[in-house]
């Protein structure tokens, strides 16, 4: 059999497909326009099964958005930790007293600043070093009497990092009691923890996704069963399968989009209020600082909110496809 392709009319056919697409009808409806010819939709707009489906979709979309948003925030925080830790090393100066010690810290700082691949050297003062120990030792005067080592925070150029082994060797040969910590062990532990968190989040997301698919497919099937009479009548008055499927796709896509948007809006409000709520609940103490360190500021950026839009599209498409298969299954029983 010879297959011929008609490309001449391709733009016209494509435009026709887009014009008659259920998505276009739904967008028109949301914008306040007419969704199709005739005053009343052929598929009953409000029914008990339809309302139940709306509630199920709204709740499941809300949960799916919350989970995907949470996984996204944790993943972003994990990436931020890595970026911070990987771009910083710490040099500890532990032996020395009085002005000799201060001089040693300055010399080490100057030495580090000269090394290639080092962007910034920030020697912490005695007070700043003491403040780091305050959460464990408290703010007593005992700190000033202890031989607290001094730290030098060094920011490295990640695009052309220094040879840390060579720097370490040079430091140890030139200065006594100076050690370099490149956070490798901490990075490895952190990588394990964050990977576990993200993988755990993805597992939960998949479970919520599966529950969402199952409940939406089931609720759509129930709603379709209540519309069986409409399918039957349309079939008997001479409607083609595509016409009937299109009417139902339009109807269920509309329910999916509207209910999905309600769910996504709920999740958006939760994420907008989350930073404020966290501040109010955890206060300003150490616990709050640790929580912030752990999950970041819990602020969802715009790609995160875009993810919610994706969830709504997936949910609405699921409704539409389930209704289409439902129509074809019912029509098959008549032929």
């Amino acid at each position: 059999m010879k297959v011929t392709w008609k490309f001449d009319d391709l733009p016209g056919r494509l435009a026709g497909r887009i014009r008659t697409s259920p998505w276009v009808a739904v967008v028109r409806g949301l914008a306040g326009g007419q969704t199709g010819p005739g005053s009343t939709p052929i598929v009953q707009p409000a029914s008990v099964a339809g309302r139940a489906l709306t509630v199920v979709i709204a709740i499941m979309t809300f949960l799916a958005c919350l989970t995907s948003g949470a996984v996204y925030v944790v993943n972003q925080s994990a990436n931020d930790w890595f970026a911070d830790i990987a771009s910083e090393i710490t040099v500890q100066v532990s032996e020395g007293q009085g002005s000799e010690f201060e001089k040693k810290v300055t010399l080490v700082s100057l030495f580090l600043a000269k090394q290639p691949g080092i962007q910034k050297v920030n020697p912490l003062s005695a007070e700043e070093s003491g403040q780091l120990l305050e959460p464990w030792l408290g703010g007593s005067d005992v700190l000033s009497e202890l031989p607290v080592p001094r730290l030098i925070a060094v920011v490295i150029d990640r695009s052309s990092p220094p040879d840390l082994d060579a720097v370490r060797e040079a430091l140890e040969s030139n200065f006594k009691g100076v050690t370099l910590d490149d956070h490798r062990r901490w990075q490895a532990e952190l990588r394990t923890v964050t990977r576990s968190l993200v993988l755990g989040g993805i597992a939960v997301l998949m479970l919520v996704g599966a529950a969402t698919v199952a409940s939406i497919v089931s609720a759509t099937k129930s709603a379709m069963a209540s519309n069986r009479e409409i399918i039957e009548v349309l079939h008997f008055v001479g409607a083609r399968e595509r016409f009937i499927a299109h009417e139902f796709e339009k109807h269920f896509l509309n329910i999916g989009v509207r209910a999905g948007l309600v769910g996504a809006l709920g999740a958006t409000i939760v994420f907008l209020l989350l930073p404020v709520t966290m501040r109010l609940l955890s206060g300003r103490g150490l616990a709050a600082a640790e929580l912030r360190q752990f999950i970041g500021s819990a602020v969802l950026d715009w790609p995160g909110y875009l993810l919610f839009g994706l969830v709504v599209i997936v949910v609405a498409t699921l409704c539409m496809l389930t209704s289409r298969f439902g129509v074809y299954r019912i029509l098959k029983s008549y032929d």
Partner: protein
Amino acid sequence: MIRFENIGLRYGLGPEVLRDVDFHLVPGSFHFLTGPSGAGKTSLLRMLFMSLRPSRGLIHLFGQNCSDLSSPARADLRRRIGIVFQDFRLLDHLTTWENVALPLRVFGKSEASYRDDVTDLLKWVGLGARMTAYPEVLSGGEKQRAAIARAVIGKPELLLADEPTGNVDPAMANRLLRLFIELNRLGTSVIIATHDFQLMDQCDAPRLVLHEGHLEIR
């Protein structure tokens, strides 16, 4: 127009409910389809409407063999047939006017092109004052007339009616029969499935009688 050749029908593995049914109906004819309850009247109508396939034999409608038609072709053929169900099958969320206009809407016609036709037809069947009423507030007779109007609005070449007078009083039954006769005069072939002998006696039309799975024309 309609040709049944050696048609047999069985449901599942059960016995044949219709056996060796052969008949030929010409355009513009008027027939009653009768027989006792359970004789297979509705099954025969469903086969005529292509919503039921025979177990054996051939059905030709409008010169086409129904057994090898694609789904869109069957839908196109159904558009040439109007059907009136015993239980009306009106859609509750549509008004009487919208229910009657449904076939034309399904055919893809614009509302402006059929607005007057639907209104005129509803007036003709005596529902001019009930156009905006929903089916749940219509009486049995009104629902039946709305169902008939929906079946004929697309100007079908064949009208099938399943017990169209089963839910109405004798006076209304007589009125509906006059309506079918009038449609037949306008060129539509009509088959009315009924076991109402009083109704059949009012019209001198041939009867397709189903008895113990066989069909004979009297």
